[in-house]
C-alpha cells in the first residue's frame, strides 16, 4: 500500500504543479477560475487517497468542505464576471 501511496501522490503532485502553472500564467480570469476548480478537486483527491491508504477517517469532513468550497467559489466568481458584463451593458463608459 506504500507503493500505491507514493504513485498516487506523485501523480497528484505533478498534476497540481501543472495546474498551479496555469493558475499563475492564465491569461484571463476564467482560466484561473477553471484551474482553481481543478486544484480543489486535486486536493480533494489527495485527501481521499490519504484516507484510503492509511485507513484514517479523521479527514473526511475536510473532504466534504473542500467539495462544497469548489462549487461555491467557481459559481460566485462566474456570477461576478457576469455581473460585470451586465453593468457594462448599462454604462459602457465605466467598463474596465
Amino acid at each position: 500500500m506504500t507503493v500505491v501511496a507514493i504513485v498516487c501522490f506523485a501523480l497528484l503532485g505533478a498534476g497540481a504543479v501543472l495546474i498551479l502553472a496555469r493558475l499563475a500564467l492564465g491569461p484571463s480570469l476564467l482560466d484561473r477560475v477553471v484551474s482553481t476548480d481543478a486544484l480543489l478537486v486535486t486536493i480533494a483527491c489527495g485527501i481521499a487517497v490519504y484516507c484510503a491508504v492509511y485507513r484514517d477517517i479523521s479527514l473526511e469532513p475536510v473532504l466534504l468542505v473542500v467539495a462544497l468550497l469548489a462549487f461555491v467559489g467557481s459559481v460566485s466568481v462566474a456570477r461576478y464576471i457576469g455581473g460585470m458584463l451586465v453593468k457594462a451593458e448599462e454604462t459602457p463608459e465605466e467598463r474596465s
Partner: protein
Amino acid sequence: MTVADVVASVCLVAGSFLCLTAGLGLVRFPDVLNRMHAATKPQVLGVLLVMTGAVIRLVGQPIVWMLVLVAVFQLLTAPVSAHLVSRVAYRRRHVRRDLLLVDELGVPAPSGSTAAARADEPAEGPERAGG
C-alpha cells in the same frame, strides 16, 4: 493484500492519473473551453474513481457515507459551475472562434470581419441581453 485492496489501488491510481491529465490539458490547451474540457475530467470521473477506491478501503467505518455524499455532490455541482463558467467565457469572447466547428449561439458574422481575430480579447460589449 487482498483482492479488494488491489481493486481499490487500481481505482486510486486511475483517479490520480486523471488529475495529472487535467494538469497537462490545462497547460497545453489553447482557450477556456478546451481547458474546461480537460479540467472536468477529474471533477467527475476522477472523483468517482477515488471515492470508489476509498469506499472499498474504508468499508465498515462509521462515516463512509460522507464519501458517497461527496461523489453525489460533485455529480450535481460540476455541470452547474461548468455551465456558468462557459456561458460567461462565451460572452466575454474568451473563446477561440476559429477553433469552433459549430457555433450555435453565434450570430452570422458581418462580411469582412474575420472570426480569427477575436481570440481572447476583452469584451467589447454585450453580445446579447438576457439570461
